[in-house]
């Protein structure tokens, strides 16, 4: 066990998986000599060489497309998108080639496409996005987003070993802000399994990524007001852990869906639908969404702070729902 940051946990997973399986290799922009824009891959070029840590031209379609091709040959490519916002440039390759290959031609595409997502870093409209909803309506893809260092490592290992294309979103706000003791040795966090981060009786808050910490903060504070939040960390966004979600809602009867992405068309929609469809009977109040407003991510601190969901906004919504 050693205390490592979220970022170091990602690096550990990459390094260990490359060690374990010679088919695992990395490709992306500036990930080799430089070690990546956020230094996630630092040291791996030195350790594994230029054949397994490949600096590519600036061409996200080629990065993802080439990863697909290599995966078809039995390799296990892990592609980095320098900022996840640029995944939009590979949208076509991901949704049309990677996602559909197994279905239509019986060839699986075991790739991981990873990159830093999320706001809070004053990155503005093009370096702060949360892109999970772009991909949610594409059968064939998987998506995960860890909230802790432990999960960052375990989910990445699971993603690399998965037989299908996995988008791995790492929240850049968490990179160096959170750390914890995690096992030095091999473990995985299975894709498709949520985790109850905090048990509670009154309201289920279902969330993921950086917002897990917001939810825990709010829960701590609301405790004193006699409102007991249960916090469910999805970890996997596609597939998601329906059982865990529904169990929590059945238990508390009230639910808040919390995410950093904007509201309309955000991930919460899918959750609301599955809850309102499958455990409607158990609901004791409206399904509440706490999300960013429907604008691009603004850059200036007062604007971005206003934009991002936070503990206060969640608490306000929770108080209202508790009183319902």
């Amino acid at each position, binding site marked *: 066990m050693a205390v490592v940051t979220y970022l170091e946990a990602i690096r550990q997973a990459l390094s260990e998986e490359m060690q374990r399986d010679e088919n695992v*290799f990395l490709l992306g922009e500036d990930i080799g000599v430089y070690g990546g824009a956020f230094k996630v891959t630092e040291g791996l070029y030195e350790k594994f060489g230029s*054949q*397994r840590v*490949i600096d*590519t*031209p600036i*061409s*996200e*379609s*080629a*990065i*993802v*497309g*080439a*990863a*697909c*091709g*290599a*995966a*078809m*040959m*039995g*390799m296990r*490519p892990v592609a980095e998108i320098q900022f996840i916002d640029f995944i939009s440039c590979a949208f*076509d*390759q991901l949704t*049309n*080639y990677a996602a*559909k290959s*197994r*279905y*239509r*031609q*019986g*060839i*699986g595409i075991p790739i991981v496409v990873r990159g830093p997502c999320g706001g809070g870093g004053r990155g503005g409209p093009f370096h702060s996005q949360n892109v999970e909803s772009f991909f949610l309506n594409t*059968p*064939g893809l*998987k998506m995960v987003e860890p909230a802790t260092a432990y999960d960052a490592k375990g989910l990445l290992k699971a993603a690399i070993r*998965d*037989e*299908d294309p996995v988008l791995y979103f790492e929240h850049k706000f968490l990179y160096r802000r959170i750390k914890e003791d995690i096992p030095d040795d091999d473990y995985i966090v299975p894709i498709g399994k949520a985790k109850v981060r905090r048990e509670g009786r009154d309201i289920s808050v279902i969330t993921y990524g950086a917002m897990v910490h917001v939810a825990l903060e709010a829960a701590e504070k609301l405790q004193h007001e006699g409102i007991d939040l249960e916090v469910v960390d999805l970890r996997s966004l596609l597939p998601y852990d329906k059982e865990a979600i529904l169990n929590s809602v059945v238990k508390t009867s009230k639910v808040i869906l919390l995410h950093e992405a904007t509201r309309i068309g955000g991930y919460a929609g899918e959750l609301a639908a599955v809850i309102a469809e499958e455990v409607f009977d158990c609901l004791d109040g409206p399904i509440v969404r706490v999300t960013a407003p429907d604008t691009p991510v603004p850059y200036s601190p007062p604007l971005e702070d206003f934009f991002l969901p936070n503990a206060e906004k969640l608490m306000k919504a929770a108080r209202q729902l508790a009183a319902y």
Partner: protein
Amino acid sequence: MTETLSKQQYLDFYYYMRMTRSLEERLTILFRQNKVIGGLYRSLGQEATAVGSAFALRDGDFISPLIRDMGAMLVKGVKPQELFKQYMAKDGEGTSHGRDLNIHIADMKRGYVGPISQLGDMVPVMAGIALAGKMQGKNIVTMVYLGDGASSTGAFHEGVNFAAVLKLPMITIIENNGYAFSTPTENQCLVKDFAVKAKGYGIPGEIVDGNDVIAVYQATCRAVDRARAGEGASIIEAKTFRMLGHAQHDNQSYVPKEVLDVWHEKDPIKNYQEFLKNNNLADDASLKEMDEKILAYLEEEADIADRAPFPQPESSLEGVYF
């Protein structure tokens, strides 16, 4: 790879070109009988490009064909019945089980990868296969086919550049057939010779008469040799012409008759027959025999496909994920 050809090889070129054309003609009949589901795309007049280039490859190499490259798939070992079934949306080994259409089938063993419809997208994918082959120490070559029109896509550019920079054994065959759907080449790109695009990537580009199966074969052999020798990617522009509309529903009224007449004279099969005869590799009788054998074979294969079942409705739910 040697560029001297045995008699058998010369005859094989003919066999596969003829097979391509006859197979497509058989498909046209099936189309008229409403047995082909969806569109029907023909490679009439372009058979030499697909066949000649594919012959330059060997087992373990990979192609990614487009709609005009059925001939390359045949060379790579796809069975006519598989193609018939595909076009008829039937089930069966070697098909997509009714999930995807026309030539969108893959067999990693036989070495062909099913394209997706989004033009250009296969270029990065084939670069990735080449990259893996290199990493795995296999001395393989990948070949990606696309049209003059598809070379306008961003994916083409990113993929070719990626392969060039990483010195990958990938050959891009640009089939310049005068049109992209209804759009004449000059409205697609100002260059007359698409091979010149290679210069922008710092790789070799060669122009070849796409209607001359031997020339195509030889040019591809040169590119394959370079690729196998570790010299990296290259582009071949095959100049040819699309003798029918974009698909069965398009009568290509937008193509000047004079142009078609000129290219009619360049028919790759007709001219190759002359070549074979002039070089005592075949005579009218032996050609006729081959043609008939092909027709008979295709008849059997089409029958098998005709009798093949459609896939089961519920089967469509399986196999999205591992």
